[in-house]
């Protein structure tokens, strides 16, 4: 069991750990892949610089699944983290129980699932409000730097330190836009429950949604169920887009310049093929093949282009929902625990669990997990979502 890849001191009140998708000069960065075993970056991620400037201590690096696209970190080349019963543990979540917070790279919903199964808070802020400079690119159009913590207050404090414009990230929004996520302009007064997505989860998860519904109602929030048929399509669309972008992003790991290089080659083709075959894990390899396939000339229109169109339709659906509601409530995961046996039997489990996380990922909308629920709001409503999750958590 290996939670930490590198550890200094987590006991300090201002200690923030990083999952291993963030580049640091002082510690190796591996992105959970043998390909980058021992890789030392020449520079720090922007968020690391910002945390340090705000007076936080970098407490260490948390184990992460290879390229942060798996269920709960089980594909790390350092091995899955489990408890004695074989229940999968998220390294970030375990560390978040000690440190003030852990910065996690949310690509495929893993940190949101981790917060859900560990009863922690995870804030995935509005896309473009936290710099991605110095993160190991995985699936750029959805990946977002988020904060995991025990309390909403801690998560928000750390988010305050890292949000803001960065010239080094072409998708970074202006400072005035970034600041909006930190103040509640309009409180959550009307919540829509995503009906079919919620219905597909385990009873224990559904019970959490029911409990949250009651707490919200007791606090004067109107809660209603909505038809979410279109939102269920986000899963397939994101699986396509994510695989394509991932395949492209990891193509730079070719054994030529840095990282793992096979000893077994005579030609450049063998150097590429053997280095990548020996260093990448099974899930990543499958996604590379799938991603290449959806981008091929024959399949582009029927897969990649269609997924892009679904992304637009889902964004339009959310806009329609937010004309009436302040937030959409749904689970962040189908279960309250996963075992190593689950992922051994089906390594693509994360692709299925995407049903719950992909709607916010694919649209770049803010999502806050806590108190057994996930709330998705319109762009820049992060603070209002955090307030609502706080209410739910405190009401339990």
């Amino acid at each position, binding site marked *: 069991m290996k939670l930490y890849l590198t550890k200094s001191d987590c006991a300090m009140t201002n200690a923030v750990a990083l999952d291993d998708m963030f580049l640091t000069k002082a510690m190796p960065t591996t992105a959970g892949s043998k390909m980058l075993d021992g890789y030392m*970056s020449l520079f720090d991620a922007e968020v690391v610089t910002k945390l340090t400037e705000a007076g936080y201590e970098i407490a260490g690096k948390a184990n992460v699944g290879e390229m942060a696209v798996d269920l709960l970190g089980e594909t790390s080349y350092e091995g899955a983290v489990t408890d004695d019963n074989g229940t999968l543990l998220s390294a970030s979540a375990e560390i978040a129980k000690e440190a003030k917070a852990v910065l996690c790279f949310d690509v495929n919903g893993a940190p949101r699932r981790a917060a859900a199964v560990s009863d922690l808070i995870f804030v995935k802020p509005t896309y473009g409000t936290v710099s991605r400079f110095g993160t190991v690119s995985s699936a*750029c159009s959805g990946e977002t730097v988020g904060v995991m913590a025990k309390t909403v207050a801690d998560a928000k404090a750390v988010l305050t330190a890292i949000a803001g414009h960065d010239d080094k990230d072409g*998708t970074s929004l202006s400072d005035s836009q970034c600041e909006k996520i930190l103040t509640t302009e309009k409180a959550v007064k009307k919540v829509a429950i995503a009906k079919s997505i919620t219905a597909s989860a385990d009873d224990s998860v559904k019970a959490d949604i029911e409990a949250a519904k009651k707490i919200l109602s007791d606090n004067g929030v109107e809660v209603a169920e909505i038809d979410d048929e279109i939102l269920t399509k986000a899963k397939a669309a994101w699986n396509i887009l994510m695989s*394509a972008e991932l395949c492209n992003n990891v193509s*730079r790991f070719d054994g030529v310049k840095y990282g793992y290089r096979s000893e077994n080659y005579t030609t450049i083709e063998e150097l590429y093929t053997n280095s990548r075959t020996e260093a990448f894990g099974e899930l990543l390899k499958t996604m590379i093949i799938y991603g290449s396939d959806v981008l091929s*000339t024959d399949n*582009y229109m029927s897969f*990649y282009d269609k997924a892009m169109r679904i992304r637009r339709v889902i964004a339009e659906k959310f806009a329609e929902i937010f004309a009436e509601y302040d937030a959409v409530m749904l689970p962040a995961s189908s279960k309250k625990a996963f075992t190593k046996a689950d992922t051994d039997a089906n390594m693509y489990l994360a692709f299925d669990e995407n049903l719950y996380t992909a709607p916010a990922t694919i649209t770049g909308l803010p999502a806050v997990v806590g108190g057994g629920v996930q709330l998705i709001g319109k762009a820049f409503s992060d603070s209002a979502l955090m307030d609502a999750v706080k209410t739910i958590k405190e009401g339990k």
Partner: protein
Amino acid sequence: MKKYETVIGLEVHIELATKSKIFCSCSAEFGGEQNDHVCPACCGMPGMLPVTNKRVVDLGMTAGMMLNCEINRTTTFDKKNYYYPDLPCSYQTTQWFAPICVNGKVRIQTSKGEKDIRIKQIHMEEDAGKLVHDDWTDTSLVDYNRTSVPLIEIVSQPDFSSAEEVVAYLERLRSLLRFAKVSQCRMEQGSMRCDVNLSIREEGETKLGVRTEMKNMNSISAITRAIEYEVARHIDALENGTEELVQETRRWDDVKGKSYAMRSKETAGDYRYFPDPNVMPIVIDDEWFDSIKASLPEFPEVKKARFIDELGLSEYDADLITQSRAFCDCFEAAYKECGEAKEVANWLISDCMNMLNKKGSTMDQLKVDGTALGKLIKLVMESKVTRGNAKKILLVMDEETIDPEKYATENNFIVSNDTANIEKVIKEIVAADPKSVADYKGGKEKALMALFGKCMKTLKGNCDPQVLRKILLEEIDKA
């Protein structure tokens, strides 16, 4: 024998004259030590995100306007995937779905008259690095200095029917783009490269024949030879069945004068293009569009006509000066300062050209400031500086920014009107060299030249030659 026609389309790659690379702040200068102009971004390390260099878009738009293109007001970047060690990210950022310019045309002039070549599109992209093979250790090394240097690719329609037309087009492109300061277009440095797509069909046939492509041609003469060779090879294959033509990429060996099929492995592949999620679509608003439009230069032929008609330059002089934007700019500024068009033209065509030739520089590398040149010409015309000394000052003006009058004063280049001093110098020299005086009096003209030269040297050239000659003759008479 059947009659055939040649159908050629061109893809021309041009490196843009920006200071920095397209998505990072590294220098885009040609040369430098290997891997000197690199950073984590352009050598493919994780964590860096592309930040678009706005200047690249400026120059892409400028090129499009010079070539009569429509400008796409929303333009996007895409990723093109392939593995090669000179491509550090294993993808090239280029424009596939919404290139910056479409539907242009370029008018060319050949022995058969004028013709318009249609431009299909111009897109912006990044260059790749360079593989250097080390024979000593039998290893390949990579130089990333050129990776991410901005390029535009100008794609023509298949409108060419001869090598002559291709050459006329390339020269026209080069002239227009140099004029607009889009690129130096130096084929020998690889800042202008050309892919030639060629096929042959029977005259009157509407279907295109089998097409072959020759990539990365980098000299006009090689392109001409390659086209002529390929045309002959295609016709031979069609007429005599010497080989079966297949659609393929061929490599031109200019030394052997032959083209060779490249291994299919080097050319095959699905590039799996998709939009780059890290580069936001670029929206060109009216203000931006208009500012570029306003910055466009006068076309060279328009300038030339104006220089002849309004300023009275000869056809020859006007033609030579309008070969280069630097010469035109210098000419116009110098003319504005001194008002003597013909005199400025002489200085540019004889003195400046000589100076550049000696340095091995091109016309566009002229650094002389036009206003300063105009001031220098004024000094010569007012007889304040001799022409000989003015030439020396010109050499300095191509190295650093100086005020010619101040420089001439500080370095004793101002013609002296101090006849007393001139007489004193002449007297001394005449007195010290009775032999030359005697020789001259004995009819040896060369002796006078020797005395004249000695005087001029002692006076450091700061003397009106006419005055010097007059006084010298007087002193010889007295001697």
